[in-house]
């Protein structure tokens, strides 16, 4: 019998990455209906390479590299504005935290202590360092 090829838009490698994101975040990104509420309330969205809504849309199609390039996970401040307003109950901050974890778990740091100005090192409060290193170092 001739096997009918099934069209699978997500490459197996991307599928594995999506599974990791689902495992780390505990969220189902396919619940997203693309309403854009998360983007409209995100305080950091203007500095990201794409909106949080676009990021979820690309993730739904397995385009994880593009989302990482857009630095959404890196720039998210985990303020949970999106999470409390998502009509589909997705904790968007957890999704992007998982995206960030993928980078960190490759032993890549997203903050370099040597690049922080001396004035900031003396002036910034302890929680700024603890939070930054917790969120942005591997």
């Amino acid at each position, binding site marked *: 019998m001739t096997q009918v090829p099934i069209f699978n838009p997500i490459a197996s490698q991307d599928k594995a990455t999506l599974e990791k994101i689902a*495992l*780390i*975040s*505990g969220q189902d990104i396919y619940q997203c209906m693309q309403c854009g509420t998360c983007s409209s309330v995100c*305080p*950091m969205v*203007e*500095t990201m390479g794409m909106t949080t809504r676009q990021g979820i849309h690309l993730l739904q199609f397995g385009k994880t590299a593009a989302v990482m390039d857009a630095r959404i996970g*890196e*720039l998210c*401040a*985990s*303020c*949970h*504005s999106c*999470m*409390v307003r998502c009509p589909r109950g997705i*904790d968007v*901050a*957890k999704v992007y*935290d*998982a995206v960030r*974890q993928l980078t960190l778990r490759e032993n890549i740091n*997203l*903050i370099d202590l040597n690049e*922080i100005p001396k004035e*900031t090192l003396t*002036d*910034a*409060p*302890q*929680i*700024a*360092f*603890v*939070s*930054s290193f*917790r*969120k*942005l170092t591997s």
Partner: protein
Amino acid sequence: MKLAYYPGCTLKTKARNLEDSALAALKALSIEVKELDRWNCCGAVFSLADDDLIHHIAPVRNLIRAQEEGCEGILTLCSQCYNTLARAHNLMIDDEEKRDTINRFMDEEPDYKGEVQVIHYLTYLRDHVGWDALREKVKTPLRDLRVAPFYGCSLLRPDDVAIEKDPTILEEFLSALGAQTVSLTEARECCGSYQSLANPDAEQQRLGKIFGAVNRSGANAIALSCPMCEYNLGRQQHQLLEQNANLTATPTYYFTQLLAVALGIEAGVCHFDLNGKPAFELLKEKSYIVSAAS
């Protein structure tokens, strides 16, 4: 209710103005609190990764310390400490599997029973002192101060740890001190938090929006409760103003500093030097300041 006071890492150094003013105000209100023995840093941010339990150890250990001391509540001042401890407490109640793993991992510690309530100073004031009683204790009403209350994110989100669902607590508190409050569109939004270290340009963009709103509101002061917000809105403000000539400087205060001033506590306790010169000068200009010599 027996309470343990949890200061957290920043309050002993960079945010002494928050701790000392808060403790002096409690004393003036005849409330005694004892600092938690052997407390450790809470980790500042709650771990969001489902498979990462190790970062819940720090906040849970603090809850265990309070439990050991027979406390029913743990009192916090820093918004991020409040958020991290309250969420860790909720996790230990809601997720049986994670609770068991965490308790087993800390086998040298007694199990956390989930009975220590995490309370923020503001809610404690509201529930155990009350706004009317506080109003009566005010010696120097802050009448000419138009204050923008800035909640930030950690006191309000997620919903299960929100100090109030649709918050008016800071407004009510400031009204009790005799201050005027202004409506601030950015009051419940994030200040950019830890991004100020890794991504200062993104942070400055965020601050530009907040200060635009502050200036439009007509406020001449900002009240907040988080050392991260204070650093971004207060100590980083000069950088923003250097780049944006259309924005006006607005001093930031921890809400407890305004409380201490209104209660007539000597200004030295408030360490206004940590807020920057304009913060002290504004209060002095309004004749609110009581100095040790007077």
